């Protein structure tokens, strides 16, 4: 099995609601996969199950050939899976530099000292936050907090990066930069699973899409094909919705 991530029969219920229902998919190394679906379809729950923040009721998750279902969040992170959060969660009392340093100090590199400090600076530069080294996250704009979160995730040296609506709320210029940044990460060999609503980004970044509705996978394949799928259109827009681009 060469898949980087292999998910089989993943199910998670919250009381009477089945948020994720017998979900199965695989991601090959180097892919950029978009996870789509209307609000409440279970996308963020999937990310939480993958990162270990939530436990699955049933089903298997294999990452790099290892079963990770039920493992502690920090061991999964150290294995090489990093994520950002839908609502940004910077570490508020730490400077930008120290935010990134946490990922370096406890992630796969377990770097510390001068080398780690320098790497943290490089990562901040990489996401365009070089000037904000000693700034506290609260002083950053929303977009820059997102950049910071990405830098912190990258500090873990992930093989699989989970982005939860990382591009949401960006203006057109920032969106272009954001897309270029994600593309460069992919070019670096990082496999990416992104939950996203911004169609431009999905079309230009993703090699493959997974579409969920009410916890179930309803379509999977190349963007052109999936986005034209009548069931996907119906899930997103309803039966008589007006068809439009942009933020769905």
């Amino acid at each position, binding site marked *: 099995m060469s898949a980087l991530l292999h998910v089989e029969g993943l199910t998670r219920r919250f009381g009477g609601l089945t948020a994720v229902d017998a979900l199965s998919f695989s991601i090959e190394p180097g892919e950029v996969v978009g996870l789509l679906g209307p609000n409440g379809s279970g996308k963020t729950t999937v990310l939480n199950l993958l*990162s270990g*923040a939530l436990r699955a009721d049933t089903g298997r998750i294999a990452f790099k050939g290892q079963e990770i279902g039920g493992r*502690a*969040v*920090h061991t999964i*992170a*150290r294995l090489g899976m*990093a*994520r950002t*959060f839908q609502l940004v*969660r910077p*570490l*508020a*009392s*730490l400077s930008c530099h*120290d935010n990134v*340093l*946490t*990922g370096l*100090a*406890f*992630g*796969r590199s377990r770097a*510390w000292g001068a080398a780690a400090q320098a790497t943290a600076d490089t990562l901040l530069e990489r996401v365009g936050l070089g000037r904000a080294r000693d700034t506290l996250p609260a002083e950053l704009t929303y977009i820059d907090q997102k950049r910071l979160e990405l830098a*912190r995730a990258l*500090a*873990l040296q992930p093989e699989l990066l989970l982005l939860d609506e990382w591009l949401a709320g960006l203006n057109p210029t920032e969106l272009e930069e954001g897309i270029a940044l994600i593309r460069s990460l992919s070019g670096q060999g990082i496999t990416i699973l992104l939950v996203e609503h911004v169609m431009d980004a999905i079309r230009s970044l993703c090699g493959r899409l997974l579409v969920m509705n009410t916890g179930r996978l309803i379509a999977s394949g190349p963007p052109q094909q999936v986005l034209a799928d009548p069931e996907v259109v119906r899930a997103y827009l309803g039966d008589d919705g007006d068809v439009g681009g942009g933020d769905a």
Partner: protein
Amino acid sequence: MSRRETLSILAGALATAILACVPFLFGDYGLSLAINIVSYAVLATAWSLFSGPTRYVSLATVAFFGIGAYTTAVFAETLPWPAVLAIAAVIGVVVAAIVGLSTLRLSGVYFVIFSFGLAELVRQLVTWWEVNKTRTLGRYVFTDITAAQIYWQLLALAVLVFVVGFLIGRSRLGLALRAIGDDETVARHTGIDTTRAKVALFVLSTVFMTLTGAIMAPRWTYIDPAIAFNPVVSFTVLIMALLGGVHRLYGPVLGVVPLALLFEFLLARFPNHFSIMVGLVFILIVYAIPRGIAGLLEQAVRRPA
């Protein structure tokens, strides 16, 4: 090492040298007041070592303090002094590790209540043991340790807690704890084993409390569970640390000195209304200076600049 750190170290060394002379300069009353202050300085600094960054408010201080005191009461007559301290430290570590592993998954108010319950539990256990097994409630602590020696030991312990706190602040563990205090979920997602970090620091912080109790025990000559496990100690330490400010290593001491003096004064002048007054002080501090004296000082330094 930055210039500022070098300066703080020099200032610390100088302060220690001056403080070490206290037994020669003041009489018995002055010395006993100094012992009181230094012991609370150790307790409050150790308390905020853990509770400051993680924001887990612990009321278990006296559980460990009392364990230390009882260790001294049981072994001081038969064993050499360093062995007594070593036993106290080991018992403290074991209890702290068990408590830490079983409770640090609790958060917020549940941990506060548990920690308070723990102190009572330990007190009841000791009482039960003494009543049913040894058939003596209360023990005499006879040692030839003088007040000055107690003072110097506490001072050494205070230096140690500052050194440890300073080193933690610069270490990976320090960064982990600050991350945990900010957002535990995020901390886990950056690869931090939050349980291990919390337990490690909890153990480290409580060892100082246990040792303080062990060193202080000879002061009393007689102890029973109600004295050794007096919950007022936990609350006093908490309020001292909060008054001083828990986000800086030197913070708690800034709260210890004025409050220890104030309590001394209140106890002498209003022995019957002491608890009420302490309660009022508690409320005042939480409302008026939530970030502590250290926070006020930093603000004052920043503003005119």
